[in-house]
């Protein structure tokens, strides 16, 4: 696709441990466009974080990454750490879940932002300080001149996450990856931070990637959603479409399991049994088949590829929820779904 800011193709990440190698990411492809908000959703171990860190070159030595990740035309996979450093921060920046662990507790927050500014730009100390105060103002921290001199422990969790965002924005990246950036925060603070991210995205024209286990959060804030399972993309669609016409039984299971305000109290939540598969010993066929209500013999024999079955809506399933799609429907089986 042309015009993509980040174009990831057939990304594979294998961890060579003491035992059998673990394929944490297996053939993931997606693109992020300028000003787009893309959510990557999945449970623990689905590969959502590993796939993003692979793009940034932030994985340990034991990880082997293959495939392609082009940022504005430049291939990132295979670059040395030194080469990648020019892209990190300046082109792609990341905000992580735990601001407490990402910030240096012995350093004033303003100094940490100024350090990020100076790491990428040839500016004097006073200029860096000025820019750091501007960044604190940008992330809507009240009294930025005063907050500049405070230590992380003097700030609340929400304020610390704003500081992390300020650091990430120090070089005005074109893509901001928020990896569970609001998971540790309270719901009202989460809403504040998410609103801030979307406002900043509009102001700065950034693309935003939200990595989250929370499908409801993705639904509420993203334009498009990718659902991952066992290192694969199993469904991709515009957020509104995913929640009105879910196709992959795994996505449906995730959606149904979320407690919702509209649901009557004590009503049993629809659940599926089992656990995500062991990535070092995957069964043949669809990795979700052992837990799937709709699984048939073909599911256990052949793995369904991810394909765009309906305009803008892709899924990897032989028997999608709601019956086969208009075109490309493989096998045209009964669908199995009620």
């Amino acid at each position, binding site marked *: 696709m042309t015009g993509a800011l980040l174009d990831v193709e057939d990304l594979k990440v294998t961890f060579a441990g003491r035992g059998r190698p673990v394929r944490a990411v297996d053939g993931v492809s997606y693109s992020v466009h300028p000003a787009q908000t893309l959510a990557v959703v999945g449970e623990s171990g689905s590969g959502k974080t590993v796939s993003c860190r692979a793009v940034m070159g932030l994985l340990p030595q034991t990880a082997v990454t293959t495939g392609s990740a082009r940022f504005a035309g430049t291939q990132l996979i295979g670059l040395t750490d030194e080469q990648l450093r020019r892209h990190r921060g300046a082109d792609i920046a990341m905000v992580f879940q735990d601001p407490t662990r990402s910030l240096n507790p012995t350093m004033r927050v303003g100094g940490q932002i100024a350090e990020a500014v100076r790491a990428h730009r040839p500016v004097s100390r006073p200029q860096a300080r000025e820019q750091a105060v501007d960044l604190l103002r940008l992330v809507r921290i009240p009294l930025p001149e005063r907050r500049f001199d405070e230590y992380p422990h003097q700030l609340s969790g929400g304020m610390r996450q704003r500081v992390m965002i300020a650091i990430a924005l120090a070089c005005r990246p074109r893509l901001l990856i928020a990896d569970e950036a609001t998971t540790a925060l309270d719901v009202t603070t989460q809403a504040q931070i998410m609103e801030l991210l979307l406002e900043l995205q509009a102001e700065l024209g950034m693309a935003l990637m939200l990595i989250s286990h929370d499908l409801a959060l993705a639904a509420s804030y993203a334009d498009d959603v990718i659902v991952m399972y066992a290192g694969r993309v199993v469904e991709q669609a515009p957020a509104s479409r995913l929640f009105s016409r879910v196709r992959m039984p795994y996505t449906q299971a995730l959606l149904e399991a979320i407690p919702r305000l509209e649901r009557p109290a004590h009503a049993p939540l629809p659940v599926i049994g089992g*656990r995500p598969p062991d990535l070092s010993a995957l069964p043949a066929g669809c990795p979700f088949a052992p837990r799937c209500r709709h699984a048939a013999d073909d599911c256990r024999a052949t793995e369904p590829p991810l394909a765009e079955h309906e305009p803008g809506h892709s899924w990897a399933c032989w028997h999608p929820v709601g019956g086969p799609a208009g075109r490309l429907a493989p096998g045209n089986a009964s669908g199995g779904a009620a």
Partner: protein
Amino acid sequence: MTSQGPAEAALLSVRDLVHHFPTNAGVVQAVSGVSFDVHPGETLGIVGETGSGKSTLARCVLQAPRPASGSVTFRGTDLTTLHGTALLKARRHLQMMFQDPFGSLDPKWTVRTLVEEPLIAYRTGDRAARRQRVAEVLELVGLDPAVHGRRRPRELSGGQAQRVAIARAVALSPALLICDEPVSSLDVLIQAQVLNLFEQLRAELGLSYLFIAHDLALVKQVSDRVAVMYLGKLCEVGPGEMVYRKPLHPYTRALLDSVPGTAPAAGRATTTISGEPPSPVHPPSGCRFRTRCPRARELCAAEEPPMRELATGHSVACHFPLEGAAAEAGAGPAARTTARSEERIGETPR
């Protein structure tokens, strides 16, 4: 909560509970005069954000730590007056479970020993009877005694470990289970399984729950009544459906607006309040929510709003509650603020 039937009908009755912590920064007023009842077979959910004092409240109910003042009447006995073995005896029917299952399970013990431990502590039956009971409760929580009984915590998944914690908690057939964020460390599919297990135990064992969490949707899912806590005080208590459909307190409204929805028509979650909770060391005068409240006026700083019942079983501590049930009560300054009163809550007794 003021009038929830006769007090003796309540399984747990908490009145004016207060607890403070001295810290370097000053005295943290964690729980400042909280009252509520839990009835037999009922689940009372308490929802609150970080620093609201909800976990301190749970621990004070168990007398660990002892509250500074107030009463905690469980099955007719005030736990704050009990000491030593009398307290231990009373607490047998009052069990607690926490967020991190691995943190509450000794890593060196097997699952079987972990579940047997409370039975030994209370000298229940002989060895054979205890082993029998361990097998029973493991089956009850969906674990295979033969397979999982020999495992140690590190060999369990998060969901399985939380099931072991539940098995430990129900082994002594308690009447009330206090759960403090019991599923927040679990993935959504496992969380749903554990929530369903709570419902199953409620039906099969007639358990009551005091269910504490930060997630309003989750609390509403499991609770008959929901209490909303802010900075050491309850600001609204009512049937879950009422609190969701007709919130009376502006803070409850803000919580509801912040929850992202998954319904196709659901709008984007928004913030209706700004700023952050004030420090519990120096809580605001009057209403503690007033510094962030869009409806706050002078009265809110001057006077603390008392908890008052505006519809059957639905109470709020606010001088200017949100429209709807407020107009029905027609009490105090609330009546002036509700220009657009809604007549739908007709069953309100005056």
